[in-house]
């Protein structure tokens, strides 16, 4: 099924190993158990739990800002999974082979599953999924800007897997060690599936890059379009990042935007060589001193524009989600009415039984 000229089984550059390690650490921390109890000074206890690399759990006291930060971040992540179904969903009906159709359908389905899983993690913080969905639909909570770019060719299914899911994994693997237990556990599961997604994207591109001249061109065009938006997925440069410092102290975030971006670039260069595709950056070159690649930064002005709603597909993605929600309203209302009738009938039957 796969070519044998792949760099390694794990195209995520060893990150899958880090997910495993995070899972082991999580288990060990649970076995160690947390020392002490919240007692009279819950704030001090919270700080101790964080310092000891233990997990904060839903019923624990936590600073309101910690709760708010997590809700914002987990919700944004959940929204990204749900909105992120659209660009790939765009090619399911046109997938060029039945095998590819099945894989893509399963992948988009996984994303819906991740979304639900993350909404459930957010709900442990005392907010409901409906509230969060309303915030998304009202434009008051964001999703990842990458999904505001269009999928113009089949090769984009490969590039999204390789670069977009690849960047997501680099971003998310450290979250497997996040201080909030439910989020950390959700991320372990999600990262494992994302790694599979990344691999299938890489395989699509590998097939195209070794296919007909037209397929090869399709693949290169796609990488050209997605490279810089993928780099922008790590957010603004550290000097401009507003949420980073506090999140690092709380161990929600473990590495800075620029550190993660560098790690991603270093991971991609060798893989692009194996694919035989060029990364569209003439300045890309190995820096012996730093032990890392120098590269051109993405256009952060463009990123800010897309975040503000002026990307190529912001309006389309939001309208699509709003329409599905609006057009499904009568179905959800029917399900609720039916459930209420059923409950009512059960109640009456019970009363009859009691009376008899």
């Amino acid at each position: 099924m796969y070519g044998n000229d792949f760099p390694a089984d794990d195209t995520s550059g060893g990150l899958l190993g880090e997910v495993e390690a995070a899972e082991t650490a999580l288990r060990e921390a649970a076995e160690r158990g947390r020392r002490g109890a919240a007692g009279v000074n819950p704030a001090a206890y919270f700080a101790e739990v964080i310092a000891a690399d233990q997990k904060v759990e839903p019923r624990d006291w936590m600073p309101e800002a910690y709760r708010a930060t997590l809700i914002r971040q987990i919700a944004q992540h959940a929204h990204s999974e749900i909105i992120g179904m659209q660009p790939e969903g765009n090619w399911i009906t046109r997938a060029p082979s039945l095998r590819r159709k099945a894989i893509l359908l399963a992948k988009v389905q996984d994303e819906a599953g991740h979304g639900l899983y993350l909404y459930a993690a957010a709900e442990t913080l005392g907010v409901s999924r409906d509230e969060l969905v309303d915030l998304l639909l009202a434009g008051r909570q964001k999703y990842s800007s990458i999904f505001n770019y269009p999928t113009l060719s089949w090769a984009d299914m490969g590039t999204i897997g390789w670069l977009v899911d690849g960047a997501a994994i680099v971003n998310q693997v450290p979250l497997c060690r996040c201080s909030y237990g439910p989020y950390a556990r959700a991320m372990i599961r999600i990262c494992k599936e994302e790694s599979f997604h990344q691999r299938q994207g890489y395989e699509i591109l590998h097939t195209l890059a070794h296919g007909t001249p037209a397929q090869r061109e399709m693949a290169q065009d796609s990488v050209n379009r997605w490279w810089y938006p993928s780099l922008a997925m790590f957010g603004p440069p550290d000097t401009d990042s507003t949420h980073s410092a506090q999140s690092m102290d709380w161990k929600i975030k473990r590495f800075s935007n620029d550190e993660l971006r560098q790690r991603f670039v270093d991971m991609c260069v060798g893989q692009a060589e194996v694919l035989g595709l060029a990364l569209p950056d003439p300045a890309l070159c190995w820096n012996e001193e730093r032990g890392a690649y120098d590269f051109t930064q993405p256009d952060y002005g463009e990123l800010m524009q897309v975040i503000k709603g002026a990307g190529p597909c912001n309006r389309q993605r939001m309208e699509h989600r709003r329409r599905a929600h609006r057009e499904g309203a009568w179905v959800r209302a029917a399900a609720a009415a039916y459930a209420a009738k059923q409950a009512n009938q059960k109640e009456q039957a019970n009363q009859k039984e009691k009376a008899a």
Partner: protein
Amino acid sequence: MTAHAEQTTPLAVQATPPTRQAAPGTVTNRVGFVLGLADDALVAAQRLAQWCTHGPEMEEDIALSNIALDQLGAARLLLTYAGEMEGAGRDEDALAYQRDDREFRNCLLVELPNGDFAVTMAKLLFLAAYQVPLYTALAGCGDERLAAIGAKARKESAYHLDHASLWVRRLGDGTDESHRRMQAAVDEVWPYTHELLAPDPTAPVDPATLRVDFDSAVSGVLAEATLTVPETSWTPDGGRNGVHTEHLSYLLAELQVLHRAHPGASW
């Protein structure tokens, strides 16, 4: 769910040398029969996949994708087998992507547009109520490959039937609006069920033998859902002979566009 229809003449025929006459259960007949089932599943998968990201709730996006995946899986097995029986070197993709609408053998029901969620659930209910006894009968037939496919697919179809039945009950007995929509959907789709059960004594499983199971599955659900079957003598058909509705050509145009734009490419 049903007693196995032990009409396994094809196996005996398979061993005999090809005859000029299309006797009951000849290989040609069987290829046509299997293609019919394969195309039902493929076209149903394509329609259900169109729902992806449009579902009325997120759980339903997952469920409909899941059912689409099941149908696609069955389609791939059946197409591969049809291609092997045909012996002309066509694989699943050649059959899915290189045939024109007049060569497709699916029933008209599956190619009808998705409509609203009620129409989709009506289509799924009727399709699953047909596929469950069909695959069950195939699971007990003398053709090993078909039996294996039937054994796998019937479990999946039972889940599809369950899912559609639940929704038809919720919508039929939900709100006034959902009842109105669900009844309209049944009225619209019902005439197309006739073709599913049209007799074909030469087939490995004669669809007419599935009538009892189909009726009992459907009538129970509709009654609980406070829905009625329309009285009509209109019984559209033609799909099994490659004469389709106007919708199929568009569906295939979308399904085949990329594959056909790159002749000979692998993906």
